[in-house]
């Protein structure tokens, strides 16, 4: 009950904010009868209406994970963001092995298989991407290769 109500409330505010920012869209000299504002406002209105329905008639709550699971989900997001950031400066192999290993550990909970999975995924995918698919991946940081 509460989950749907909270979500409905959040989407209601987002929808209202969306409508408010849609009214600020600049129109140019090229005008058509509908204009650039009308359709976004219409969408916002339908979304707001659906949010209200959700607040008034919520479904039963899903089973949310325990706080420990939330923590590991948060860690997973951090790992992915770090991976996204590291991919360019550090090359493919090291960040991929690290990120895949951590994710694997988070799923299985065992360290040694996770390390093996991380390293072999990193190497295997690199070979597939580089040689079978011909993508221009950089294996290591550019400074290591003397570039």
């Amino acid at each position, binding site marked *: 009950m509460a989950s749907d109500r909270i979500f409905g409330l959040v*989407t209601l505010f987002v*929808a209202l904010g969306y409508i408010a920012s849609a009214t600020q869209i600049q129109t*140019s000299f090229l005008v058509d009868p509908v204009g650039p504002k009308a359709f976004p406002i219409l969408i916002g209105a339908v979304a707001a209406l659906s949010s209200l329905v959700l607040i008034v008639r919520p479904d039963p709550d899903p089973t949310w994970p325990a706080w420990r699971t939330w923590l590991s989900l948060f860690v997973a997001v951090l790992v*992915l963001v770090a991976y*996204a950031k590291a991919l360019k400066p550090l090359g493919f192999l090291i960040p991929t092995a690290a990120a895949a290993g951590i994710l694997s550990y988070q799923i299985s909970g065992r360290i040694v298989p996770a390390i093996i999975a991380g390293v072999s995924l990193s190497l295997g995918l690199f070979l597939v991407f580089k040689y079978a698919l011909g993508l221009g991946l950089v294996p290591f940081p550019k400074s290591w290769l003397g570039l």
Partner: protein
Amino acid sequence: MDIMSNLALGFSIALSPYTLMLAVIGCFLGTIIGALPGLGPSNGVAILIPLTFSLGLDATSALVLMTAVYYGAMYGGRISSILLNIPGDEPALMTTLDGYPMAKAGRAGDALVLSGVASFVGAFLATIGLMLLAPMLARVAFLFGPAEYFALYLLAFCTLGGMASNNQAKAALASCLGLAIAMIGVDNNSGMPRLTGGSLHLMDGVDFLVAIVGLFAVAEVFFFIESHGKSSSLGVKLEKVVIPWKDIFACKWTMLRASGVGFIAGILPGAGASLGSFLAYMSEKSIAGEKGGFGTGVPRGVTAPEAGNNAAAGGALVPMLTLGVPGSGTTAVLLALLMTLNITPGPTLFTERPEVVWGLIASLLIANFVLLLMNVPMVKIFVKVLSVPPWVLLPGVTMISFVGIYSLSGSYFDLLLMIGFGMLGYVLRKLDIPTVPVILGILLGGHMEDALRRAMVLSGGDAKYLFSSNIAIGLWIAAIAGFVAPMFLRNILKKPPAVTD
């Protein structure tokens, strides 16, 4: 004789060694994707699109490869349904009902062969149906003006939302979310930026591939972290596979009927393969009656949903190719592929680029035979794939998603956006809000607004123009009915409970 000459054109493209090779690779990959639990047709096709694109394949080759993957995934979904009692993809859910009991009774091999043959019959008949029906529908589609297209898009959202969700408000919210995201970026008509919040990254809008891969593939990883990827061990033994000719012949009418039901369900916009297999199973169950023993592991209970599922997969290509409106989640992803390749689906596709359409149809016919070979005599290879544990599979899928998106745009911002969509997908699915309407909204939002604005330009701002033709009125009625009717049908069309050990 039009069809014959078109088919000849198609086969001249499809039988070239390169295209043939792509079709075989696609079938193989697709069957694996379908068989692996946690990697369904939608996210499987989604993570492969950026890679296909960066490979630099031309339009026909890319389309052949990806539709072969799509057909293959529909075949493969049954393998884990039968052996693990876990549907490899959503449409294969109904196959668990009789497939798993049959496997437990020591007839795993029979169940796999029967369902493989049923998949072939369903997919083959549906491809023939596609070949006959699509050109006809394409001619009708020439009559569609902007008012009709606007109503058609609305119909897609309404039926997809109505069928895919248990709560209409949630489906509507999901569609609005997608449409709202589609509005971000430079407005085509006025050339002014909209709702970008001043961010330069958002001027081009949100790339739908980023959203699709995030919502489908990255969100899946979060689910596996939550459940700690409870590894599924093979519960049943697979003995020597022999072909149960007697059962196949006993099921011939079931397969034909189920293919028909599935094909029609597939053509309906928004309904898709899940509904196809569901309706096929339920109708066969009521034809067989109490004595049919559905749910206890009878051959007809295995063939009906598989024929229905694969026929629906072919049927769903009809509205996608002729009207540009996808019939299911996976065809929505295929539509994304077409858009990435700069192909506008619709009636003009049939007249202007016949080599794409007919090459595709001919490839699908060939792919079907390849899939039959892979899924009946060689099925044991794919059974081995099931033993890939989730703690290798899911990190692998994530890394492929990252590399795919990164090789497409090379932008750190897009990767962050993809992670954001992954988080969104997790929350939405937790709250039982369907994610397919979000994708559809992002894909079709621009077209839908365009249709509305062009209609209003034509009529000088008169809203009555939207209801000015019989086609438009029919589509509006169908849209409203498709949205409202599931509320009342929900109690009648209850899904039968899954088999538990």
